[in-house]
Structures are given as structure tokens and as C-alpha cells.
């Protein structure tokens, strides 16, 4: 390197240069990640109210409160079901659509573009549209279902605990399945064609070819997609919050909404932070299991 010999930068040795080059990303990491995270963890040990911004150190009291609180356990169950259901259905629907869009047909490029539509639209617009569709009195969904005779009377989709949860799940699936389509479709396009040809010669029918070749080829990306979607959906706040606000009867009260309720509804910053820290630990756990599994797979 030129900096080694002579010149005004002669004092700069390779080790120093390395540190200097790392500094911007290290600082960014500290400021944007380590600081907020530590601050959040610190806050979870405080009783802090909006009128008392200094807060009082209460140790593990927030966690003790949390684990003894039925609403927390209920929200944890709802969040788990919500993440599991939306991710599972996104993967099934996304893979199915990707398989269809991988087949040659007229207007395929147009359809491939249109499929991305839900993913591209702003969440708030999507939610407003779905609130209209789901509306009990003048919603299009009820109109169509009644017209076709599938149901006798309109259903108040978002006002009953059971239907509200699944209605919210449906929107979550609809909004984010294009992400799965894009990734799976990209993977499908690089599966070597001669694997299918070899299988055809070996006597594999269409189903055997899907199971023995396609599924194994896309398995790796499905695992990555499952991890990414799980993190995203478990943390997702806006869909349930905007559609139902966590109701009715807490049926869609996911953990992020519970955090919001504690921190900004009841001004209990400490308790809100404690829930957020628990969510963080849960996701760390999920990722550890995932990577342990991947390591086992790859040898």
C-alpha cells in the first residue's frame, strides 16, 4: 500500500487504516441499534410515566407483573397464532401463485406485475379498502356472499372475536404473500431444466416431479422466507391495529398492540418496554433454533 512508505500518511499503519475504515459502520451500528436497544432494556427496569420522565428503578417488577398478567399470555398466544397463520398461509399461497406464474401463458408478464400490487400499496390504503370490503352494512364482501346465496344474512366480520381474527389474518396474508411469490418465482427460474427431464425419463409423473425436484429445490428459500416473514409478522403492528384496534374483546390484541396500549395508552413506558424485550428474546430464540436447524441441514 502507498500509505506505508513516506509521505504525510506514513504514520498510518494498516491496522489503523482498518479501524478508520470500520468506524462509520461501527458508529452507525452503535447509534441506530445498540443504543435504542440498550435504552429499551434499561427502560424495562424502570417505572416511568409520561409525567415522570426520569423514572424510578424497580428492578424486575415490570417482568414480575408481566408474567402474572393474563392479558400478556393471551396476547402472546394471539401473536403466535397470528404469526403462524399468516406466515403459513403466505407461503402456501405464495408458492402456489409462483408455480402458476412460472408456467408459460399469454399475458404472464402483466399478471406477474399485478400480483405485486398488494405488496406495493401503502398499508393505510389497503386497510381502508378492506374496511370497506368487510363492512357489515354496505360491504362488498357481504353483498357478494348474500347475492350468491353462500350466506343468508350479512356477517359483521370485524365485530365478532372469531371472524375478526381470521379477517385480520386474511388481510395480512393478502398484503404480504407477493413477497413469497417474488422469491419463490426467482428460485423456480433457476432450477435446471434437465433435472425434470431426467426425472421424466426415470418415470416420474407430474406430482413426483413436484415433490422430488421442485419442493427440494425451493426448500432452502422457503426456510429463509419463513424466518423473514415470521420476524416481520410477529412484529407487525399496523394491520390488526388499524383494522380492529386489538378488539373485539382483545381477540386481535397482538403483542405489539399490547406494547402500544401499555406505553402510549396507559403511559406505562416500563411495562411496555418489558413486553418489547420479551418479544425480542422470543425472536432471538426462534432465530437460534432456525440457524441450528440450518447448520444441521447443511452437513
Amino acid at each position, binding site marked *: 500500500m502507498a500509505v506505508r512508505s513516506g509521505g504525510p500518511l506514513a504514520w498510518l499503519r494498516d491496522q489503523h487504516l482498518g479501524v478508520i475504515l470500520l468506524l462509520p459502520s461501527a458508529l452507525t451500528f452503535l447509534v441506530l441499534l445498540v443504543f435504542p436497544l440498550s435504552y429499551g432494556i434499561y427502560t424495562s427496569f424502570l417505572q416511568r410515566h409520561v409525567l415522570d420522565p426520569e423514572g424510578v428503578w424497580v428492578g424486575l417488577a415490570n417482568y414480575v407483573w408481566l408474567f402474572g398478567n393474563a392479558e400478556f399470555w393471551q396476547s402472546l398466544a394471539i401473536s403466535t397464532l397470528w404469526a403462524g397463520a399468516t406466515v403459513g398461509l403466505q407461503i402456501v399461497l405464495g408458492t402456489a401463485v409462483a408455480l402458476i406464474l412460472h408456467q408459460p401463458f399469454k399475458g404472464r408478464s402483466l399478471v406477474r406485475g399485478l400480483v405485486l400490487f398488494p405488496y406495493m400499496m401503502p398499508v393505510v390504503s389497503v386497510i381502508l379498502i378492506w374496511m370497506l370490503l368487510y363492512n357489515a352494512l354496505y360491504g362488498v364482501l357481504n353483498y357478494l356472499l348474500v347475492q350468491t346465496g353462500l350466506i343468508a344474512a350479512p356477517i359483521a366480520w370485524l365485530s365478532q372475536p372469531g371472524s375478526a381474527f381470521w379477517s385480520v389474518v386474511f388481510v395480512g396474508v393478502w398484503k404480504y404473500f407477493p413477497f413469497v411469490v417474488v422469491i419463490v418465482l426467482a428460485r423456480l427460474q433457476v432450477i*435446471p431444466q*434437465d*433435472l425434470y*427431464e*431426467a*426425472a*421424466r*425419463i*426415470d*418415470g*416420474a409423473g407430474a406430482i*413426483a416431479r413436484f415433490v*422430488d*425436484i421442485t419442493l*427440494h*429445490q425451493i*426448500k432452502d428459500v422457503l426456510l429463509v422466507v419463513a424466518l423473514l416473514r415470521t420476524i416481520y409478522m410477529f412484529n407487525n403492528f399496523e394491520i390488526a391495529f388499524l383494522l380492529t384496534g386489538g378488539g373485539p374483546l382483545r381477540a386481535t390484541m397482538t403483542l405489539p398492540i399490547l406494547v402500544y396500549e401499555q406505553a402510549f395508552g396507559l403511559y406505562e413506558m416500563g411495562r411496555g418496554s418489558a413486553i418489547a424485550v420479551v418479544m425480542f428474546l422470543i425472536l432471538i430464540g426462534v432465530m437460534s433454533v432456525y440457524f441450528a436447524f440450518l447448520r444441521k441441514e447443511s452437513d
Partner: protein
Amino acid sequence: MANVRIDRLHKEFRSHGGVVHALKELTLDIADGEFISLVGPSGCGKSTALRIIAGLETPTSGRILFGPRDITKLEPRDRNIAMVFQSYALYPHMSVRQNLEYGLRKRGVAREERDRKVATIGAMLQIESMFERKPRQLSGGQRQRVALGRALIRDPEVFLLDEPLSNLDAKLRVHMRAELAALHQKVQTTMVYVTHDQLEAMTLSDRIVVMNHGVMQQVGRPDEIYSRPANRFVAEFIGTPSMNMIEGELRIESGKPIFTGPGMAIALPQASLHMPAAKQATLGVRPEDIALVAPDTPGAIAARVTVSELTGAERYHFVTVGGGSVIIRTPASTVLHPGENVALGLHPDRLHLFGGAGEDAAALR
């Protein structure tokens, strides 16, 4: 085991605004147990022909028969063929054993029978030690053996090989070529082999089919293809370095055919009188059929050496004759220096004469 009859096979591909004739009226009889190579440059239709035999493509017209059985419309699985792909196409997530027995499994062969066959094939190809490994843990040559094993295990009537050696490095390719020849000796199954490598075709085949632009140019034993090429394309395609092609004129002087080209006038054998009376003609002569002679030899051609290349056992000498360039192949012991003047003699029995345009040509003899 079956003979294969390919009857006026035709394949058109329709693409944006045009029709491509990948294969034009290919007719060919392949004997039971024969090793036949389809050879030609990229896009000559050799792979299309193989894929149609496999059932991976449907022909636009024409028929394929295995023995008395018309298999033109059958699915690949119902044809009793096996194929080895250039990329090997091993199932990446399956072990070697699972790869080998996949076809048997799909045909409902019982477990004991499968185990027995896997063991036999494993021993034959010396791959028993890697049964539990995945394809990515194997070297190129080992993958190649597994691909061959997967094809062999089903006792196919016809064995199709699509450039199976072209992903191997040069040394391994020579080794596997010999193994492939030995394998064919052993199993005696009909093999159809596609390659762009004329050396593979020459060394392995009972017969060679040379193709260009979807049209069969010549079919024959390797020595026939080499010593009696049917036209200029075959003459130039087969042989390294390529046959020298000298443009000139064919004249009759006092009842004898004479070829005159730049810096030469060569008396041809009488047989060439049967040539179409083309005035323009091309004389083809292989680099090894040109000899260095004493300058006072009657009919000797004057030439000047430009470059000499040593390839090991042989030397290639590039010489200029009357402004044109000619390659001569000699033993390595023949040393010539750039700028040296030499005299050349052509072996009269080994000359090839083609019509001027080169397309409607017939070899001299």
C-alpha cells in the same frame, strides 16, 4: 435391446416471426448394439434429434421405431430409454444410492431387486464406496459415473448420451472416453451419442453421423468419414488440423484432368473425369498427405515456411504456396525454419476434389 429406425424426422421451432428448421428429414437406421455418434457444430440439430428420440421433444413430422414398435408418441418413461446429460442432472438432495435407484423406485421395483441392481452397477462402475454421499461431494468424474450408473441400472433398450464428457477436464475426458468404450463392449446396448468433439466421435463410434444446419451430411464408419468425406463440410469438420482447401480450376489437357491453383498444377487420377464438369473447383488435401520432396521432383510445388509448431510427437508447418496458406503435418523430427524454401508433393491417391461452390461437392477417387 433393439434396432432404432428414424424415419423422415422433421422438427420446426416457431419463434418470434419465423420458423427455424432444427431438423430436416432425418432418416437413419441404427443397428442393435451399435454405437453411433451424431456430430456437428452448435445448432446442427444433433441434440434436437437426440431429444426427440428421448421423447423430450415432439417431432413436427416423422416416426421413430424401436424394433417393430412405433414409439413416436410415447412418453419418455414408456420408451425404455436412458439418458446421460451433459450436466449429469443428478438429483442434488439424493444420495448416490437414491439417485441410482430412483428410476427403479418409480417403476415399482421391489426393494431386494433394487438393492441387488444397485450393488451390481456400483461394482461395475466402482462407485460402491460413495453410495451414501451426495452429488455435490463427488468429483466431476465420479458424478459422471453415477450418471452412467443411473442410466445403466434400468437395462434400457437404447442408451442416449448428450455430450456426457464435455464438462470434464481434458485428462479425465480421455480416461472416461476409454471407460465408455469398454462399457459399451460390456453391455452391448444400442448407444446414441451426441458430441461436438470429432475426436470422441472418431474413437468411440461404430458409425458417425455428421450433421449441419439440421441436415445429415454423411453417415459412415469413422475411417470412411475421414478418408472419403462426402462433401466439403464433412472434409473440413473432421480432422485436426483441418483439411487444406485450395481454390482453383479443373481443366482437361490432352485427355487428362489437371487442377491448377495458385502456384501449382497437379495431374489428377483419371477417376476425377467423373466429376461434374465444374470449371471452378476446390482441391482438398489433409496436412499429413503432403510430403516434403526434393526440389527437382517432377510436379513439385514450391513453398516457403512461415511458422512451425511442435505439438509433441508431430510438427505442424504453415507454408505459403502461391500466396495461399497450407498446413503440413510431419513427425517432430522434421525441422523447418521460417523463411526456408521447400518443395511439396501431394499424395495422388489421397486428394479430394470439390465443386467450386463447395456445396454440391463430391470427393475425388
